[in-house]
């Protein structure tokens, strides 16, 4: 990966001077002394802040919880922050693009990678277990599928490629933004696309397509442009932990802005979100399966911002090995609590018992049960195959606790397109 693109933009932590009362709590609690003050403002030094979030909950005012996407080289200095009466306006996508931050739009959620092993022939392949629906919710938008196949792929231009995990981690994850120019490529949240890596396999045949879930909402990562984003985790070992260098993921992670990519798709006609007012969405994913959840969440967030859509409840169960391996962690925590109910489960936090998404679901069984009772609730599961059984069992337990018959409910969920499983 070229260093120039690494963290070209940062989410800078800022304190809102209009709300801050200068109580000094944050400064006294910061473990790395990143917070300082003058007679006017309390400010965060972007060079020192390690995003540990220790200062967030102790702040009595909420002024501490502000973030701006800026090019790293243009991060607001401490001296500049001292002069503020109010927070600066957000950089626009255009301003960021002018500074070379192509994957602008500063993901409200940072992406993670869903390296879906490709189905033969590049067809959309949902590994639906018994309870998984094969039909979309009644209010799903109509999807376009298979506009481009292996024989007639279309070319997309890379307009952004940003590494979103810390250097030094075992894996790196990239946020890759593709632009289709004037070629039609309409997509919906939950759909995926296929990437044709250049070159050939050992036997001389061209590489087959690899499928990736789209991580951006229907109107684009950057709204109003013909673009979408993928979250790509560089594959360096297979499911059994044996070293293997993923062909497509390494290809994608190493792309530079301006490179052309051969794309097929879109794929997927049932793992689609409901669009009617007051429809609830329950999302259950593990690290690599969060891309469609980000897309759906972001679409609902944009709708909410218009003030014209009455969304239902969003509930997310998100599992990862550790907090550090969960790229959503910071940004997710910035979403308002009345917008989304977030539950994390970490299975490898040192010194803590292993906790999986199904454990988090059982803890929230009462609230989950209430949602299961609501015919406007739609459930999405995405991640490794091994999570499927535990998750469906936890759902059935929550249903039974809520005095619902799982046999009846499970069949209804499937028939009505309300439970979608996508595991690999």
């Amino acid at each position, binding site marked *: 990966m070229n260093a120039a693109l690494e963290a070209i933009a940062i989410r800078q932590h800022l304190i809102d001077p*209009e*709300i801050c*009362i*200068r*109580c*000094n*709590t944050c400064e*006294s*609690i910061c473990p790395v002394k990143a917070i300082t003050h003058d*007679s*006017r403002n309390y400010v965060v030094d972007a060079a020192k802040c390690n995003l540990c979030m*220790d*200062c967030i*909950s*102790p702040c*009595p*005012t*909420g002024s501490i*919880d502000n973030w701006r996407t800026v090019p790293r080289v243009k991060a607001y200095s401490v001296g500049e922050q001292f002069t503020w*009466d109010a927070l600066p306006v957000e950089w626009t996508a255009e301003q960021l693009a002018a500074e070379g931050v192509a994957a602008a739009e500063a993901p409200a959620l940072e992406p993670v990678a869903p390296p879906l092993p490709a189905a033969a022939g590049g067809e959309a392949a949902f590994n639906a277990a018994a309870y998984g629906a094969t039909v979309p919710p009644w209010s799903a938008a109509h999807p376009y599928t298979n506009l481009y196949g292996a024989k007639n792929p279309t070319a997309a231009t890379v307009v952004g490629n940003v590494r979103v995990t810390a250097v030094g981690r075992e894996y790196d994850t990239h946020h890759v933004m593709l632009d289709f120019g004037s070629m039609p490529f309409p997509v919906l949240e939950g759909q995926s696309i296929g990437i044709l890596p250049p070159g050939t396999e050992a036997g001389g045949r061209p590489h087959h397509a690899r499928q990736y879930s789209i991580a951006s909402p229907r109107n684009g990562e950057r709204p109003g442009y013909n673009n979408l984003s993928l979250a790509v985790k560089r594959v360096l070992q297979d499911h059994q932990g044996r070293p293997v260098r993923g062909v497509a993921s390494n290809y994608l992670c190493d792309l530079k802005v301006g490179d052309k990519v051969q794309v097929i798709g879109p794929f997927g006609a049932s793992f689609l979100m409901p669009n009617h007012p007051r429809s609830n969405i329950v999302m259950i994913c593990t690290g690599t399966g969060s891309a469609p959840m980000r897309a759906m969440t972001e679409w609902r967030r944009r709708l909410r911002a218009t003030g014209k859509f009455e969304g239902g409840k969003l509930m997310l169960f998100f599992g990862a090995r550790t907090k550090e391996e969960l790229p959503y962690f910071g940004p997710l925590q910035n979403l*308002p*609590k*009345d917008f989304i109910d977030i539950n994390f489960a970490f299975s490898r936090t040192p010194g803590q018992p292993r906790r999986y998404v199904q454990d988090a679901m059982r803890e929230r069984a009462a609230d989950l049960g209430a949602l299961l009772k609501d015919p406007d609730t739609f459930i999405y599961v995405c991640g490794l195959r091994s999570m499927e059984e535990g998750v469906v069992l936890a759902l059935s337990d929550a249903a039974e606790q809520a005095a619902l018959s799982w046999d009846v409910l499970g069949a209804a969920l499937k028939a009505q397109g309300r439970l979608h499983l996508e595991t690999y």
Partner: protein
Amino acid sequence: MSTIDYSDKIPNNVNLAEDRTLKRALEQWQPNYLKWWGDMGPDGSQDFEVYLRTAVSVDPQGWAQFGYVKMPEYRWGIFLNPGEKDRKIHFGDHKGEAAWQDVPGEHRANLRRIIVTQGDTEPASVEQQRHLGLTCPSQYDLRNLFQVNVEEGRHLWAMVYLLHKYFGRDGREEGEALLQRRSGDHDHPRILRAFNEETPDWLAFFMFTYFTDRDGKFQLCALAESSFDPLARTTKFMLTEEAHHMFVGESGVSRVINRTCQAMNELKTDDVATLRSAGVIDLPTIQRYLNFHFSVTIDLFGADESSNAATFYSSGLKGRFEEGKRADDHLLKGQTYKVLSLQGGQFVEREVPMLNALNEVLRDDYIKDSVGGVERWNKVVEKAGIAFRLKVPHKAFHRNIGALAGAKVSPDGRVVSDAEWNANVEMWLPSGADRAFVASLMGRVVEPGRFANWIAPPTIGINRQPVDFEYVRFN
């Protein structure tokens, strides 16, 4: 013998489970505390479930746990900030020696007095505010009031812990006495005068939390420097909670001003009568409330020349605000400080020994800090395009303690005659009519998301909850 597991019921990091003496003392005291809370705590609130912050430990994750709690079941905890290994005394005659982990005999009386005086203010403010819930302008504000109340309660626990743990029978008696005195009671008043004043309405409450709780902050900051390590560690943790109280005050006043400015712009007037009939609090009245609370609060710092203050400092009991950040010799012997007084109708500045003037030093630091928030209130006015500025009154205005006590000085710092004072006092301090008007606005608003007409909603909710969140569940 009680079977209550106090170490569970009382979140703590002072090893309560192992300390039998302390446990016994608390077993005696806790039922009396709860009785006091029942009698003198927030009026009619015992059944409410309130979305409160509870501290369960002192680390960043542990001390801001949010959830619904019935206030009498609030888990009042005892917390000391983590100790600093080999902490040294850093001011006064003992500078450089190891900090005290126990009370030195020669300082016992003074330390007890300091702790009791601080502790007495905590239940006092709960008593002063106990009827405010009946006239809250919103659920959000009601919740903030209750949060302030339970945390004042926890501060009382913090001080009583020190009394029980380090002062033996004297300490236990003082702990009881803290529950006996009553704010405003003729026979058993609270120790400090400002804590015997009423908090009759919400504007007064916001002013009180802004100005008077800020006095609390400065006193706690000074005690956080103390050579008596348990006191320093307790008060450091209390400061994190005190911050919320000042937030309630600063944002509360700011929201009142915001609403008034809105009405001024809608009605295109600054006429007091018109604004009052529109049901908002005119800016001159807000200024008069400010004058009152500021002047009453700066009295709390004590006499401007005080040999007690010198003793407390030199013996290492109480430091200055941000003592650790100051670059002088931390002994202050032979140094002087300018103190304002009135001689023959003229202000004169006298140089007095710095050590004797430490109350004045703390008062001046406080004044500097207070002005900052007032300037932020002015930004709200400015933003609304209105030509009006709030100002803190002159230090000598309406004083009752120290060399300036009883002086007739206008808010802008002119020495005035008795006649001029009497002719203008209603322009400078809230009159009976002002208070009656503000009181007339106080009606109870408790539907989630609704706010009384005289106050703007806050910009953001508590703990990132929405503003219309159900902060209080009435049962």
